[in-house]
């Protein structure tokens, strides 16, 4: 079964989804003071880092721009920050872009929401009713290990090139991911909680509500953050290769016309979508999981 329950691995996978999920270790006796026993993180004087990061980013962008203008790299292939910006402005002021964006967002939200709605109850059931989980175990493992993109041709076959196939594709990956995550979450509820509930004579339903759900929620949220990344990949791929509309389709058209600036703009959009959703989920996770002892 997928290792969502292994603490380190779920920390690892959430790291992939969102850089800000990594909290710096603190071992300081006094803030801002150089102390040999600090961990590597705090010894660096965390706040100075922001300046360096900003400098590094600005430096890179400048270098890129200069390289493009001076012809060190071919603008056709690599574009430049200003060109991307111009392309962005052009798109945003045009009408096609908003149509594409609406389509993409629609496809994504429908697919993702359906995935959430379907996978969480199923995951809870599969985790709670052990035998049911074992029954479906091989299938879940198989679909978890298969990259969603392999289904694109199948889904196109079944749903055609319209909105439905993309929705189905966005549905597929997150569905499995969240289902497995939820399942693992239920399975790792410590049996001590079960004992406590039983010793007070709690009924199954009450136990479910008061213990199981709260314990599982962090797992579900972590799985959702992971699913966002997978869903983004799904929609990008689906729109690039099996669609006639959407930001991904725009990307493909731009690529075919060697318009690197538009391509990069589309890449940027998808990145923002993914990061934005991740951050929202992270905020929810922090609010909801307040009771959890911080690593």
């Amino acid at each position, binding site marked *: 079964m997928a*290792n969502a329950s*292994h*603490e*380190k691995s779920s920390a*690892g*996978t959430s*790291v*992939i989804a*969102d*850089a800000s999920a*990594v909290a710096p*270790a603190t071992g300081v006796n006094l803030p801002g003071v150089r102390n*040999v*026993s*600090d961990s*590597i*993180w705090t010894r*660096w004087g965390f706040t100075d*880092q922001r300046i*360096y*990061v900003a400098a*590094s*980013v600005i430096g*890179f962008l400048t270098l890129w721009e200069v390289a493009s203008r001076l012809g060190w790299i071919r603008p056709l*292939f690599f574009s430049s920050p200003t060109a991307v910006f111009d392309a962005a402005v052009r798109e945003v002021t045009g009408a096609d872009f908003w149509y594409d964006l609406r389509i993409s967002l629609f496809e994504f939200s429908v697919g993702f929401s359906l995935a959430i709605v379907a996978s969480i109850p199923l995951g809870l059931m599969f985790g709670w009713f052990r*035998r049911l989980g*074992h*029954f*479906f*175990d*091989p*299938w879940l*493992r*198989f*679909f978890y*290990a*298969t*990259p*969603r*993109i*392999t289904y694109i*041709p*199948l889904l*196109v*076959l*079944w749903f055609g090139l319209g909105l439905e196939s993309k929705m189905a594709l966005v549905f597929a990956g997150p569905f499995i991911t969240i289902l497995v995550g939820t399942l693992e979450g239920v399975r790792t509820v410590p049996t001590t909680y079960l004992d406590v509930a039983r010793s007070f004579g709690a009924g199954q339903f009450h136990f479910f509500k008061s213990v199981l759900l709260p314990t599982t929620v962090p797992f579900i949220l972590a799985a959702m953050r992971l699913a966002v990344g997978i869903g983004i*990949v799904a929609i*990008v*791929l689906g729109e690039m*290769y099996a669609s006639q509309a959407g930001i*991904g389709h725009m990307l*493909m058209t731009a*690529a075919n016309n060697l318009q690197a600036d538009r*391509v*990069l703009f589309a*890449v940027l959009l*998808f*990145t923002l979508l*993914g990061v934005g959703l991740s951050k929202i989920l992270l905020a929810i996770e922090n609010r909801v999981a307040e009771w959890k002892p911080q*690593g």
Partner: protein
Amino acid sequence: MAVSETHAPATASVDAFGTRLLRWMRKRERVLLGFLGVVSLIAFWELAVVAGWIRSSMMSSPTIIYERIITELGGDRLLPSLGVTLRAYLIGLGIATVVGIPIGFIGGWSKRASYLLEPWLAALNATPTVAIVPLILIWLGIGQTSKVFIVFLFAVFPYAFNTMVGVRQSEAEFLDVARSFGATEPKVIKSIVLPGAVPYMMTAARLAVGRALIGVVVAELVASNTGLGFLISIASGTFDTSLLMVSVFFVGVFGLTMTEVMKAIERQFDRWRPEPTS
């Protein structure tokens, strides 16, 4: 459920056998249920296609898929395609490991390097690599090079990013111990930083293995005329449903195998750490 001595010998042995069978079944419950799940769903699937509930042009029945697998295995394109895919996959993954881990290490250990590297690693990590594939095609064209490069790109970021985090979180107390005994920096790295980062590298490896698979399939779908992904695109183009499903099946098996292999490797490394530490 002890068998009473007063039973006739014949029924006694049948009863004993029944008991032992039940106990054996209960122990292997998980495997048996899983097996049952596979078998029953396949049977249902077969039934659905045969009875016409599902059109065979949409989804081939298990028997047809099975027959097609046999045919293709005897043919001259399935196995070579598998080989091509495997090669590109392993090469790309290998390069990603060799490049990603050192970069991650430097990013985690050296203060200055991390200032330079981290924003980019984080940004690239968050970008859907698939969206960059067309750009790569523009740069490198179609062929083995771009395929391997795409696989590399997909797999390298988990390695770099996770290793960086793993190195950074080296337990302060261990570093204190080493320093209090006067250890030199290489010693500290070898005895504390690297072993401590291993769990993170293992997680990274597991992620990279999955992403490399996505990479190779994407690359072959759009940027190649060899490999499993290419087979998929052919099947899709010719509406050859059973071939399509066979290819998807093989990709799935491939992914499953890699996942299980990774889990086995991880178990090996967990010898000294049976309980996950926070």
